[in-house]
C-alpha cells in the first residue's frame, strides 16, 4: 500500500465517522420531536380515555307509589303541604318494593335493616327531591303509582362501567356482594339503563357525583369572559393605537413599552394577589364574583391584546395613511377611518387568543375566591360563581370515584371550547389576512 492509499483510507474513515455523527444528530432531533408528540398523545389520550365515560350515566326505572295519606291526607292540594310531605319515607318505601317487583323476595318478607340500607345506597341520594319535583310539577299525580327514571348512585354507575373490581375482597370495595347481585338482576330485568349524562350540562355543582354538572361553571366562565372582553378589548385597541400611531419617541413611551412586555411575562398568580389586595380589599368588590374575576383576567390579557393589536397596526402599509392624509384627512381620521378597519381582523385574532388564555386560567381566580362549592347557577356578574377550570380543580380533589370521569369530561368540554376559539382565530387570520 502506498502512502496515498493510506491517507485516502484514513480520510474515508474520517468521513464515515463524520457522517455517522451527522446521522446520530438527526436521530436525536427526531427523537426529541417524537418524545414531544408522544407526551401530547399521552396527555390527551389519558384524558379522553378517562373522560369519555363521564358523558354517559346509569339510570334506574322503578315504580313510585304516591300514597295520598303520606303526601296530602286532607286533600288540600296546597303546594306548601305537598312540598313538605315525608318524601324520604315515600321514596324509601318505593325502593323497598323494587325487590318485590323483581320477585327477588317473597311478598310480605321484610328486609333486614342492613339490607334496606344496602338497597337504598344503590339509588341517588337526591332521588327524594327529584320525585318531589316531579309531583310538584303535576299535582294530579298524588295518589297514583308512577314510573320514574332517575340516576342511580354513582357507585352503581362506576360498577357498570367496570371501574369497581368485583374480585376485590368485599371490605375493599364500595359495593357489597348482595348489592352487586341486585345490580345484576336489575340489569337483566332491564331496569337499569345507560343514557347520555344530561345532568353534566344542565346542573350546577353537587356533592353527589351523579348530580354534579358544569352549567354553573360554564355560566361563570361566560360572565367573567364578558367582563374581561368588555374591558380589555377597548383598552387594548386604544392603547395600541396610541403607541403605534401617536406616541412621541420619549422616555415615557419607552417605559410603557417595557412595562407591557414585562406584564405579559408576570406569573398569573401575582395578578391574583393584585386582585385580592386592590379589587377585593380596597374597592370591596363582591368576593367570588365574575366581576372581580373578570377584572383580573382583563388586566392579564391586556398585554397579549396590545402586543397583537400593535402587530396588526404595523402591518398596515404607510401608503394607506399617506393617501388618506393626502386627501385632507387629519391624522386621527386616517387612523379611525382607514388603519383601524384594516387592522381589525388582526386585532380580533389576538383578542380571541387572549380570551382563550383567560378561559383556561385558574391560579389568579383561586385568589379571588372563585374556587368554591357553589350550587346555584350565577345570573349576574355580582353573583358568587366559579369558572370551568376552577370546577375542574375542585372536582379533581374529590375523593369519590365518580368525580374522576366527570373531571376528565369537564376537561374535554374546556378543551373543546379552547379548540373552537383557536380554530376561529386561525380562520379569521386566513380569511382576512392581506399581503400588501
Amino acid at each position, binding site marked *: 500500500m502506498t502512502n496515498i492509499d493510506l491517507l485516502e483510507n484514513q480520510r474515508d474513515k474520517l468521513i464515515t465517522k*463524520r457522517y455517522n*455523527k*451527522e446521522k446520530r*444528530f438527526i436521530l*436525536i*432531533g*427526531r*427523537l*426529541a*420531536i417524537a418524545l*414531544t*408528540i408522544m*407526551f*401530547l398523545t399521552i*396527555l390527551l389520550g*389519558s384524558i379522553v380515555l*378517562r373522560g369519555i365515560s363521564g358523558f354517559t350515566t346509569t339510570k334506574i326505572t322503578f315504580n313510585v307509589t304516591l300514597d295520598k295519606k303520606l303526601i296530602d291526607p286532607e286533600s288540600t292540594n296546597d303546594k306548601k303541604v305537598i312540598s313538605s310531605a315525608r318524601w324520604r319515607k315515600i321514596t324509601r318505601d318505593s325502593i323497598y318494593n323494587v325487590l318485590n317487583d323483581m320477585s327477588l323476595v317473597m311478598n310480605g318478607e321484610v328486609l333486614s335493616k342492613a339490607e334496606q340500607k344496602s338497597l337504598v345506597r344503590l339509588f341517588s341520594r337526591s332521588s327524594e327531591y327529584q320525585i318531589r319535583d316531579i309531583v310538584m310539577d303535576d299535582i294530579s299525580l298524588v295518589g297514583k303509582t308512577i314510573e320514574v327514571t332517575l340516576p342511580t348512585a354513582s357507585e352503581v354507575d362506576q360498577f357498570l362501567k367496570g371501574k369497581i373490581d368485583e374480585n376485590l375482597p368485599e371490605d375493599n370495595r364500595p359495593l357489597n356482594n348482595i348489592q352487586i347481585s341486585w345490580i345484576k338482576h336489575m340489569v337483566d330485568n332491564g331496569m337499569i339503563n345507560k343514557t347520555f349524562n344530561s345532568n353534566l350540562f344542565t346542573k350546577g355543582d353537587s356533592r353527589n357525583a351523579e348530580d354534579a354538572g358544569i352549567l354553573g361553571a360554564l355560566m361563570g366562565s361566560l360572565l367573567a369572559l364578558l367582563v374581561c372582553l368588555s374591558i380589555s378589548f377597548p*383598552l*387594548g385597541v*386604544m*392603547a395600541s393605537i*396610541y*403607541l403605534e400611531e*401617536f406616541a412621541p419617541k420619549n422616555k415615557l413611551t419607552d417605559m*410603557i413599552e*417595557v412595562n*407591557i*412586555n*414585562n*406584564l405579559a*411575562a*408576570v*406569573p*398569573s*398568580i*401575582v395578578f391574583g*394577589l*393584585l386582585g*385580592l*389586595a*386592590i379589587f377585593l380589599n380596597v374597592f370591596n368588590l363582591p368576593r367570588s364574583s365574575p366581576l372581580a374575576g373578570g377584572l383580573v383576567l382583563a388586566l392579564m390579557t*391586556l*398585554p397579549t391584546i*396590545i402586543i397583537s393589536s400593535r402587530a396588526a397596526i404595523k402591518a398596515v402599509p404607510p401608503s394607506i395613511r399617506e393617501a388618506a392624509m393626502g386627501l385632507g384627512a*387629519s391624522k*386621527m381620521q386616517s387612523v379611525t377611518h382607514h388603519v383601524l378597519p384594516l387592522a381589525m381582523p388582526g386585532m380580533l385574532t389576538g383578542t380571541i387568543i387572549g380570551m382563550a388564555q383567560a378561559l*383556561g386560567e*385558574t*391560579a389568579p381566580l*383561586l*385568589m379571588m375566591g372563585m*374556587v368554591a362549592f357553589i350550587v346555584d347557577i350565577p345570573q349576574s356578574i355580582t353573583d358568587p360563581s366559579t369558572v370551568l*377550570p376552577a370546577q*375542574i*380543580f375542585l372536582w*379533581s380533589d374529590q375523593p369519590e370515584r365518580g368525580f374522576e370521569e366527570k*373531571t376528565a369530561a369537564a376537561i374535554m368540554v*374546556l*378543551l373543546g371550547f379552547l379548540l373552537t376559539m*383557536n380554530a376561529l382565530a386561525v380562520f379569521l387570520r386566513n380569511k382576512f389576512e392581506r399581503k400588501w
Partner: protein
Amino acid sequence: MLDISLYFIFLLGLSSYYIGKNRAKKNINLITETGGLESHYGMYLVVWTVLPALIFYIIWTIISNYLIKEATLDSIPSDLLPENISMQRLFLDSIIVVAKGGNSLSKVPEISVAFYQNFAYYSTLGKSISTISISLISFFIFYRKIDSTLRAKNFLERIILVFLFISSIIAIMTTVGIILSLVVETSKFFQDVTIFEYFFGLLWSPQMALREGQVAAEGSFGAVPVFAGTFLITLIAMALAGPVGLFSAIYLSEYASKNTRKIIKPTIEILAGVPTVVYGFFAALVVGPFIRRTSESFGLAASSESALAAGLVMGIMIIPFISSLSDDVINSVPQSLREASFGVGATKSETIKKVIIPAALPGIVAAFMLAISRAIGETMIVVMAAGLSAKLTANPLDSVTTVTVQIVTLLVGDHEFDSTKTMAAFALGMTLFAITLMLNIYALRVVKKYREKYD
C-alpha cells in the same frame, strides 16, 4: 344603584348632539369654514355636557362613600364600639346593611342607622342637584361657543388622544398596582418577621395560633425550604424541557422539510394552549401514580405527590415555549453564516454545533431564562401534584412545596386579612415577582439586542 341625575345627563347628552349640529348648521358656513363637519360640532357639545358632570359625579361618589363610613363610625355610641379595627369594620357593615333595609344578625344602634340614612339621603340629593346643574351650565356655555371661530374637530381629536393616552397608561398603573399591593403587605410582614429569618430560616410552618393559648403556637417563616422546593421542581422541568425543546427547534428549523414543519410546529404548539389545570390533573392522576408504582417496583419509596411528577409535567408544559423561542432565534441567524460553514466543508450537524448554536447562544439563553421564569411562577401543576409540607430535600421522589403552592394555601379560604399568614403570602409573592421580573427584563433585553444585531 343609578340615580336620576345619570339618566338626565344621558338624555341631555343625547339631545345636545342634535342641538349642537343644528346650531352649527345655522351659524356656520360649513362649506367654507374648516372647523369640522356638523357632526363634530354635535359631538363637541356632547363632550362638554357629559364629561365634566360625569367626572364630578364619580369624584363625589368616591369621596362621600369614604366620608359616610368615617362619620357613621364616629356616630356609634362609644360603649357599643368594638375595640378591634376589623370588628369595627364588620359592625359598620352590618349597620349599612340594616340602613339599606336588610336584616342583620347582630344588634345595631338605631342612632347610627338613622345617621347613615340621613347622610346618604342628603349626599345623594346634593350629588344629583349639582351634577344636573353642572351639566346644564356647561351645556349653555358651550352651546353659545359654537360659531365660526370654533375648531370643533381639533378639540375632539385632542380629547380622543387623551383617552388613547390614558388607556396606554393602564399598563403602567397595573405594574404600579402590583408593586404597591405587594410592597405594602410585605413591609407589614417584615415588622413581624425579620428579613434574616425569612431569607435564611430553615423552618417553614406558617400555622399560627388561631386562639390565644392554643398549642400550635408560633408560626415559623424561614423560606429556605420553600425556595429549595421551587428550585428542585424547576430544575427537573428544565432538565426535560431544555434538551427536548432545543433539539426539536434545531430539527424543525434546520432539517425538517417545509411540509413536515407545517404539521409538526402547530402540533407542538397545542401543548402551549392546554390550560395548566389540565396539566395538574394529568400530573396528579396519571404521572404521579405511575412514578410511585415504578419506583416501588425498584424498591424505592416514593410519595404520591413527588417533585418528579410535578417537575416532569411542568417540563412537558414548557417544551413548546422553549422550542418556539429557540426556533425564532435559530431562524434569525443569517444564512450567510451557514453557507460559509458549508463552503469550508462542514457537515450540517457540524455547522449547527460550531456555528449556529454559538451565534444563537445569547438568544437561546434568554429563551431558557424566560422558560425558567415561567416554571417558577407556574401554580396549578404544583398545587395539584406537589405537596404542602416544606421539606429541605434533594430527593426528587419526595414531596416538596413551592412558593406558588404556599401562596395559594395561605390565601385560599376565609382569613383575616391582617394576619401574619396572609402577609407571608404577599412576601412570597413579592419574592416571586422580583425574581421573575429580573429574569424577564434581562431575557427580553437580550432578545431585543439580538434581533437588532442580525436584522
